[in-house]
């Protein structure tokens, strides 16, 4: 048998009888499983998830579910096809043994794999003081159960809601509170809401929007401590300027933490920013060597991006989970030169205070911003972010239909400022500093972030010319 024939036979054999384990049973895990079957993989497929629920959709949790329009358990993701998998739900993966090719689970099982997909995503950062975090009425919002709990708390109704951290989740929660006519205080350590993701210029607009809708917004402040009553229910918060806010629901929206702890000791390039992988989803080991049997997709993946100087990009976005999973699944059952790259122009949307906010590209990669269409005053506008004469991102408020134009410009490394529109020009079209905060403010960590070329941990020992 020739070598190519042998290789082809191996691929056929793997597709027919291989064993694939997917760790993570949310959007990326489910779509990867479906894509694997779509690719013709007929071997055994195991999906491990720490939550007891079948895969569900998260974007509605901070919107329709909190408003009470949709029950938290009515958010199941639609299935695109049968996946014929063994589901291990409610059981977390606790370890990875790459030598034995086994995943350890919390119930003590060792699940063998030939190929593994890591799609463990992120979790909500909890309020750092565990006693205060345990008070009744102190919530985070990431999972379906979180949303159900918070929805119930909002329906009570509370006398005031305190939101700590004005990123997207915090801002959306505040928006829902105002829609439900609940008094709400938002405390943000940065200079304005959304500054991490969109910079200070847009943050200022978001701040005005919140205040116009009756949010008691306090920026440049932290929450020092939370205080409960005798029954263990949260009653007030002490802020860093010495003021006190009385609130009986507190939402800690402090950003997310990547679920990589279970990979401790596995020798993969995992750390604070997730698991490093190539643009096809193949995981890197701790030395930066690509593995042959492990793939990564979704929020927990970070891969070099061709449009952004090949820096490693981590994207906590819905379409990144879907498309990254599809690319990884394809590559798991194919060989070079048939690998697919996952080259996604990042994009996200948010709904808050009656405005649809959308973005493409990586805004924090830019250092300047220019308003390109519409009216800032009326909060219908488009703006572009630039860096060294190149457009790198765009954001729209109720102008999402134009985003495609900016996306194309970004893909083509178009000029910054971009060509002006033929109509509906904003008054001032001069680029100004975009005002992104210095890294280090946890609530200001954007949900799409360039993590440099460096792994966040340097556990590998460097020995050159080793023999």
């Amino acid at each position, binding site marked *: 048998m020739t070598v190519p024939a042998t290789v082809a036979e191996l691929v056929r054999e793997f597709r027919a009888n291989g064993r694939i384990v997917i760790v993570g049973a949310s959007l990326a895990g489910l779509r990867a499983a479906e894509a694997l079957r779509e690719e013709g993989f007929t071997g055994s497929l195991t999906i491990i998830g720490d939550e007891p629920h079948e895969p569900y959709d998260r974007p509605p949790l901070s919107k329709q579910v909190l408003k009470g329009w949709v029950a938290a358990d009515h958010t199941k993701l639609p299935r695109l096809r049968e996946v014929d998998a063994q589901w291990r739900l409610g059981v977390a993966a606790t370890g990875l043994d790459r030598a034995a090719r086994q995943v350890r689970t919390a119930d003590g099982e060792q699940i063998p794999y030939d190929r593994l997909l890591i799609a463990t995503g992120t979790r909500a950062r909890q309020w750092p003081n565990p006693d205060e975090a345990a008070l009744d009425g102190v919530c985070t919002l990431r999972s379906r159960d979180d949303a159900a709990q918070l929805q119930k708390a909002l329906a009570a109704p509370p006398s005031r809601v305190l939101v700590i951290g004005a990123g997207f989740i915090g801002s959306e929660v505040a928006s829902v509170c105002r829609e439900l006519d609940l008094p709400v205080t938002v405390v943000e350590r940065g200079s304005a809401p959304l500054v991490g993701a969109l910079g200070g210029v847009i943050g200022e607009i978001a701040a005005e929007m919140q205040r116009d809708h009756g949010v008691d917004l306090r920026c440049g402040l932290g929450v020092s401590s939370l205080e409960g009553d005798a029954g263990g229910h949260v009653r007030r918060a002490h802020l860093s300027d010495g003021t006190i806010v009385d609130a009986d629901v507190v939402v800690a929206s402090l950003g997310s933490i990547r679920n990589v702890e279970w990979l401790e000791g596995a020798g993969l390039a995992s750390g604070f920013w997730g698991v490093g992988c190539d643009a096809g989803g193949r995981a890197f080991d701790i030395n930066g060597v690509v593995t042959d049997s492990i793939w990564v997709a979704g929020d927990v993946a970070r891969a070099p991006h061709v449009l952004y100087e090949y820096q490693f990009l981590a994207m906590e976005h819905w379409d990144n989970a879907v498309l990254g999973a599809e690319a990884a699944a394809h590559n798991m059952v194919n060989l070079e030169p048939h690998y697919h790259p996952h080259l996604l122009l990042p994009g996200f949307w948010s709904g808050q205070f009656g405005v649809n906010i959308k973005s493409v590209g990586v805004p924090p990669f830019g250092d300047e911003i220019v308003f390109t269409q*519409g009216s800032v005053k009326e909060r*219908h506008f488009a703006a572009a972010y630039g860096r060294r004469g190149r457009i790198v991102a765009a954001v729209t408020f109720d102008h999402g239909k*134009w985003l*495609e*134009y900016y996306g194309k410009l970004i893909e083509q490394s178009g000029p910054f400022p971009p*060509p002006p529109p*033929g*109509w*509906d020009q904003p008054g001032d079209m001069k680029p100004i500093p975009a005002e992104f905060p210095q890294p280090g403010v946890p609530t200001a960590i954007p949900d799409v972030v360039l993590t440099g070329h460096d792994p966040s941990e340097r556990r590998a020992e460097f020995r050159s010319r080793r023999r």
Partner: protein
Amino acid sequence: MVEETPWQQALRYANRANPYPFYEELRRTPVARQPDGTYVVSTYQEIVTLLHDPRVSSDIRKLPVPVAAPAEGSAEAEPITEAVISLEPNIITQDPPEHDRDRRMMMPHFVGPPHSPHLISDLEPDIRRIVDGLLDHMQGKTRIDAVDEFAYPLPVTVICKVLGVPPDDEPRFHSWIETALDALDFGPEAASEEMQNRLAGGRRAVEEFEQFAAELLDRYAQQPGPGMLSAMVNEDGPEGGMSKGVLVSNALLLIFAGHETTVNLIAHSVLTLLRHPDALEKLRHRPELIVPGVEELLRFESSVQFWHTRSAMEDIHIAGTTIPKGAPIFLAYGSANRDPKRFADPDELDLERRDNQHLGFSQGIHFCFGAPLARLEVQVAVGEFVRRMQNPRLVEDPPPYRHNQIFRGPRHVLVDIDGIRD
């Protein structure tokens, strides 16, 4: 005589039933300058790009009228757009911010969310009743006209109800619309004596239609009534109301576009399915395929073949061509929907086609306002037609077509049947 471009040939009435071979030729030059200085865009990717380019205007008033000296051999016809569209701008011929504001004002009275999210879906029982009635009425016949007896009456009844136009006025506005549509010609035949005569009639018809709409709106201003037009006149949103001229223009647009395009889509759907017996049979056995099926029919025979009011506000570089500032741009949706670079086997009808992001409703800010209503009407109408018709056969293929090039559709579709199922 200069040889005609593929675009000019596609516009000839003789090619109305099948413009597709000319579109295929046209797509070899994705952005093709015509002798009159118009730039015709015929490929999917380029059209989508221009639909999202803020340097492209949709405002007919920004269209420079004398584009270029008429090419030799072409007649000096009066510009049609000037003659027929003498009205104030409506949402389809406006740019932001006016477009956005007016569309925002109209939206709550139609599709509704967040204020009345069930407005369209609540129409389904009515639509079913109308469709049932039309099909019941054909009982006993062996030959029907799927246009006059089916495709036309449904959308016109529905749009009258939605807008609050008295159904008794239907014969009048039907005749104005027909006259105006027959007068519009963008092709080499526009210069003919007959078309020039029709043009005068078309202008009169639009004026009378305009007068009719203005009177109707006046009546609603004095005495509010049911439907969207009354709401548009009487219920000012946070951004105020529209001027009377803009209201009339948008009312005309809604009355016209609210049924004319749907008529053509139903008629073309019947025609297309009868030409594809396998697809018809598949739909009969799997009625749920009507939902993706209608999307495929929208792609296959687009109700709006092209749109003509756009122009370049700056030089635009695209597909190796520069559309110069001021040049009119025609977007040929009907061709883009058959572009093999976007749709595999584009001339095949595949009711289960995946990734079918056709341009049948356009894209971007001018995406069809009535799309949710049109989808519902056509899904019900074509679904029931397929279910109830016994052994339908096409009598005449191709059937006679209406004159209009934009709103392309058959004038009659005669069908022989063995009967109507219950």
